[in-house]
């Protein structure tokens, strides 16, 4: 019997990858569990193991081949003494990855007109029919909405970008890396510290290449001690250095919360202005894909409540770069909330030396006169997607990207609401005491007379993030929910 070894997926939504190298040659005897090859995506490397015992009869894809679709046969393993040419029985190769790699998944946008369904995930634990039988979310919607379309890679419109600027297309991951590298070149006090930031090149590859350029003194791998290295970095900042602390994800920053809040945020005040803490805490925040409750929380509202902190949550590569550079130069502790799903999204970043975006300034991402959407980070995908949908019906939504959550650009929200009279706040975080709740309160206080309807909120559901694909989709906001909320405030 022969078995095909198939190109494995690093994540349920990975579509293709590169065959980096073969560790066995044709004719080699392999045992189940032997590593036979290495595959790569832009974010991670993974070993391919043989699932069966036999002889590596044929290598179908030479080392170095790029863009190999998941599930493509890459080799044939034959039982001892067998020919390699018989029937192609697909065998799902066992995949081996480290814990955090499971988090390195992208909720890649589905192809046009196609639902993000089990089709692209061979091992998905549900059938499509089941998905459709999923319980409706609070009776709001019977059918689970489609995954949001990505934010269009449109040229960012912002006052800080001159009209004659040229642009380069890059992912948010690259933009963040460039921001750090530029600031490290500029200021010798800036260094990066965290788990796997150096040799491993970043758990999500955001710090790729920094070790090579700046060396181990300034790119510091830590033990897995969030509480300890957060406190240590605060001490270094008190002493005048400018640490960039990477949390592998913000979920793990919970162990360091005491130093973020009690040590970093409060000391300037408690010292009567003497001891500032110029530090950036950054990393992916919020839901990734299929990593369940302990790896999927959006902490935006938690941090945005704390005086003494600045909180930033960019939605695109350009904002990410300009804001991270500002954050690193800021004399205060800054919480910089990234989003794993956005890391791989491309957008246009201006080629400007010292491209700085001021902290605390929102951006009008799309102009409109009928309803205001206010969002940030990945929430912008739903808001912009809904604006596209509504445009087909002749409804013009204005979309505001907050970019900074603390200090919040309330003036920008109020100015828009005065124009539209209606407001929908969109976020992936939980509803109670969320960013949307704050927006609703501010709009009520400062634009009450202009409102034609109560402020509506579209949020993550009030539950821990479930694992099952269908439930996860239900737990997150959707374009359809934003459209429905817009219709509700428009009384249509």
């Amino acid at each position: 019997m022969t078995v095909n070894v198939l190109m494995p997926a690093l994540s349920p939504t990975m579509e293709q990858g590169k065959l980096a190298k073969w560790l066995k040659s044709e004719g080699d005897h392999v045992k189940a569990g032997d590593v036979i090859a290495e595959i790569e995506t832009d974010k991670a490397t993974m070993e391919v193991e043989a699932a069966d015992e036999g002889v590596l009869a044929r290598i179908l894809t030479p080392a170095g081949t790029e863009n190999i679709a998941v599930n493509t046969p890459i080799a044939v393993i034959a039982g001892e003494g067998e020919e390699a040419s018989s029937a192609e029985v697909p065998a799902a190769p066992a995949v081996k990855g480290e814990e955090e790699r499971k988090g390195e998944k992208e909720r890649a946008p589905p192809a046009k007109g196609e639902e993000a369904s089990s089709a692209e995930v061979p091992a998905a634990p549900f059938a499509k029919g089941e998905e459709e039988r999923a319980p409706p979310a609070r009776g709001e919607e019977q059918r689970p909405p489609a995954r949001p379309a990505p934010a269009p890679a449109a040229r960012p419109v912002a006052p800080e970008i001159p009209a004659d600027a040229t642009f380069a297309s890059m992912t948010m991951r690259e933009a963040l890396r460039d921001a750090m590298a530029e600031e490290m070149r500029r200021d010798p006090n800036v260094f990066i510290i965290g788990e796997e930031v150096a040799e491993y090149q970043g758990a999500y590859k955001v710090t790729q290449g920094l070790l090579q350029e700046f060396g181990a003194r300034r790119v510091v791998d830590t033990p897995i001690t969030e509480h300890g290295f957060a406190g240590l970095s605060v001490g270094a900042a008190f002493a005048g250095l400018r640490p960039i602390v990477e949390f592998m994800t913000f979920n793990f920053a919970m162990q360091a919360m005491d130093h973020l809040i009690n040590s970093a945020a409060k000391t300037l005040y408690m010292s009567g202005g003497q001891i500032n803490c110029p530090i950036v805490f950054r990393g992916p925040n919020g839901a990734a894909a299929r990593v369940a409750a302990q790896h999927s929380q959006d902490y935006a509202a938690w941090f945005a409540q704390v005086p003494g902190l600045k909180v930033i949550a960019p939605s695109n590569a350009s904002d990410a770069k300009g804001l991270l550079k500002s954050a690193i130069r800021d004399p205060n502790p800054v919480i910089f909330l990234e989003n794993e799903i956005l890391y791989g999204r491309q957008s246009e970043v201006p080629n400007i030396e010292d491209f700085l975006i001021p902290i605390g300034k929102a951006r009008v991402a799309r102009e409109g006169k009928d309803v205001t959407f206010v969002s940030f980070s990945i929430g912008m995908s739903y808001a912009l997607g809904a604006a596209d949908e509504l445009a087909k019906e002749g409804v013009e939504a204005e979309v505001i990207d907050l970019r900074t959550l603390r200090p919040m650009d309330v003036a920008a929200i109020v100015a828009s609401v005065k124009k539209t009279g209606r407001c929908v706040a969109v976020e992936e975080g939980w509803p109670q005491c969320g960013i949307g709740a704050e927006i609703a309160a501010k709009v009520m206080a400062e634009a009450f007379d202009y409102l034609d309807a109560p402020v509506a909120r579209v949020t993550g559901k009030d539950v821990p993030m479930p694992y099952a694909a269908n439930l996860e989709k239900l737990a997150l906001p959707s374009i359809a929910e934003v459209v429905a909320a817009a219709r509700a405030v428009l009384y249509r």
Partner: protein
Amino acid sequence: MAAASKVETEAGEAAGAAAPALDPEQELAAYRAMLLIRRFEEKAGQMYGMGLIGGFCHLYIGQEAVVVGVRMAARDSDQFITAYRDHAHMLTCGMDPKRVMAELTGRRSGYSKGKGGSMHMFSREKNFFGGHGVVGAPAPIGAGLAFANRYRGDGSVSLTFFGEGAANQGQVYETFNMAELWKLPVVFIVENNRYAMGTSVERSSAQTEFSKRGVAFNIPGLRVDGMDVRAVKAAAGAAIDWCRKGNGPYLLEMQTYRYRGHSMSDPAKYRSREEVQKMREEHDPIEQVRARLIADGRTSEDELKKIDAAVRKIVADAADFASEDREPDPSELWTDVVM
């Protein structure tokens, strides 16, 4: 570990009967510094009783030799950091007693403009980095100061103090690991005053020899008679030297005792009056120096009285200043939140 054993021998001698003598000038300086702490703390206790100081107020009385001995072995460029039992560290770092006391009374001239209080004061100028209200927090922050020293290669050492109760915090061990791994110039000083609030060492700690708490991380440690300023200075000197030479961190357990309650309201039920009495009579750090100075014959009672009077004057002036100074302007509510 040749150097480690050298440290142990030097300080080991210091800890025993043969603690290296201080020259008379140093003895006098130690006496004066410790006395200033004692009188200041007594005054703070009185002012608390009068309602001039509020909230928590943790007095250092009985532990004076620890911070004074360490300071005598340090340079001005070395940083000090501790928890909330911090008045003594500030005075010893050369911060102005008037402004420390004014912070205790919550007045505008206090080191934190009245916004920090007893537990939260800092002086960048004097390299004092707080003043922290969270048990255990000074450990990693102190190691972070040392990280900056190593990053800059400026030869400074971080003197990081915390209680024996704090030594049971997980973050302390996270910090030990990183400090040794990265060879950070930090001396961890466990002020073992035998109690964390009302919990004695025996009731809280599986390993009560705190000098051994670094063993798992290869951090050399030493138990020191923290009531004898000579022993403290010798041990701290050797430990600081060890750090300054780039050997990594050092751990000192200072065996000491607090005479007063944990904070101003203390049930005093967890230890006997006799125990406290015995420590005061037999081990008082200030009396030890005083006795030596007199026995030595080079310092007269009169001279010591002059020092006493001078110290009392400093403390009285600080108390007056802190009572008369105005409260912060209401506008200060909104300042210093962010820069």
